[in-house]
């Protein structure tokens, strides 16, 4: 798109939002349609695909046996990785993860970790020696805005779908036994992202709104309407009042979106 067309569109988006409207007809706090499919990748221990409008995310989990961190010898390890797969957008380039995908992975990771969604103690096999390491790989397959909310949802859906193999310990070696146990997922943190455009907050910005916004704010909310993770992004700012307003709205939206998950 030429930059002139972009600017005309940005003007249009801003003018509409001033009137409480959006280019795709949504209300300011409406999400696009959300579809969640769990269990598409049989090779993965767990998997899920999320469509948020045209934004498409695939998340898969793998479980390995590894060492705990030295400061948490009784706890399993969670590793979240995000790939901005180059077929998802002409602006994504192949290569090692850059700032944007690292931030995406870390925001998804913090939502799960801080809400205590995973019972890490149950992922310990032998304190200080052997624990389960849970890898969550978030794969962005089409980028049409609001990657954080879609990725957080896909990651959680994949975890809810994850089967851990059974095991017993024989002479210091872990032996795999038949059968599976579900992963101990106790909380369901939902990320709700706001864009600030023309000094108004809107939820779930799509791509063209993201290109127009001043700043971004993500609130992750747990089942009991607690705030458990926040991330501000972009080179603009929010007033303290907008921050508190966003927290309130996020609590409502999180409760709605949580219903898309099966467990």
């Amino acid at each position, binding site marked *: 798109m030429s930059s002139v067309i972009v600017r005309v569109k940005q003007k249009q988006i801003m003018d509409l939002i001033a009137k409480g409207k959006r280019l795709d007809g949504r209300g300011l706090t409406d999400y696009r349609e959300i579809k969640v499919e769990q269990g598409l990748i049989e090779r993965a221990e767990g998997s899920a695909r999320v469509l948020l409008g045209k934004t498409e995310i695939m998340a898969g989990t793998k479980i390995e046996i590894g060492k705990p961190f030295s400061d948490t010898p009784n706890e399993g390890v969670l590793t979240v990785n995000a790939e901005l*797969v180059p077929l998802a957008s002409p602006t994504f380039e192949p290569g090692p993860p850059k700032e944007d995908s690292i931030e995406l992975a870390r925001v998804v990771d913090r939502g799960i970790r801080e809400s205590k969604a995973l019972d890490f103690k149950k992922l310990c096999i032998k304190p200080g020696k052997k624990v389960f390491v849970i890898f969550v790989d978030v794969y962005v397959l089409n980028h049409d805005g609001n990657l954080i909310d879609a990725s957080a949802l896909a990651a959680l859906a994949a975890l809810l779908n994850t089967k851990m193999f059974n095991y017993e310990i024989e002479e210091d070696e872990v032996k795999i036994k038949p059968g599976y146990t579900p992963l101990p997922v106790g909380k369901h943190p939902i990320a709700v992202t706001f864009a600030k455009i023309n000094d108004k907050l809107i939820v779930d910005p799509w791509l063209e709104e993201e290109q127009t916004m001043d700043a971004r704010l993500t609130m992750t909310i747990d089942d009991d309407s607690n705030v458990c993770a926040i991330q501000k992004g972009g080179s603009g700012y929010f007033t303290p009042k907008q921050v508190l307003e966003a927290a309130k709205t996020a609590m409502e939206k999180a409760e709605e979106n949580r219903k898309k998950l099966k467990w």
Partner: protein
Amino acid sequence: MSQKPEKLIDKKGLRLDGRKPEELRSIKIEVGILPNADGSAYIQQGKNKILAGVFGPRELHPKHLALPDRTVLRCRYHMAPFSVQERKSPAPSRRDIELSKVIREALEPSIFLEYYPRTGIDIFVEILQADGGTRCASITAASLALADAGIPMRDLVVACAAGKADDTIVLDLMDTEDKKGGADVPVALMPNLNAVTLLQMDGILTFEEFEKAVNLALKGCREIYTMQKEALKAKYESVKEVEE
């Protein structure tokens, strides 16, 4: 964690997944499924699940790679970490780099590279799930993605492997046959030109077995070629419907 099967072919001459030796796995192909790519295709072949996306012809970065007389074709074959039994690191392995090269060289003969000097065409292949024969299925899908992007081509490229399971020459090896079998011969073909654009082999085959395997793989290619053309047609018919 993986069980070692005693036999890859049972007494009835059937394979572990019930197929006859010369039978393809079930294949599902869709064209034009990625909104942001200039062309795209999805293939499911057995448990393989593969996405191919094409961008271009477009400006090349970095610019010094551009050629004055033709477009530069680039290809990245990449596996999702969750696509295989043991988690694959997202950094490209040596195998990934080799496969990216042979896939690119399998597709290059089909493209009129000289039509778009000073530009680049990028092919991105993502293996969402791997089940043996990913390089062939990647070529089949990537060639459709190129066609979907409107790149002028001599013919579609289609690929399929044949190989040896126990003592039998079989078509379209799945993961276990690939790993436990005696040989694997992936072949890519432009059917209308009778041109083999990829040929590799692992294993041990006599000349006679090799000849049989190549011919079987070519037969497989021609069967998949029909499905490729149908998938393209389906895309354009659906587009036509939408436009009407």
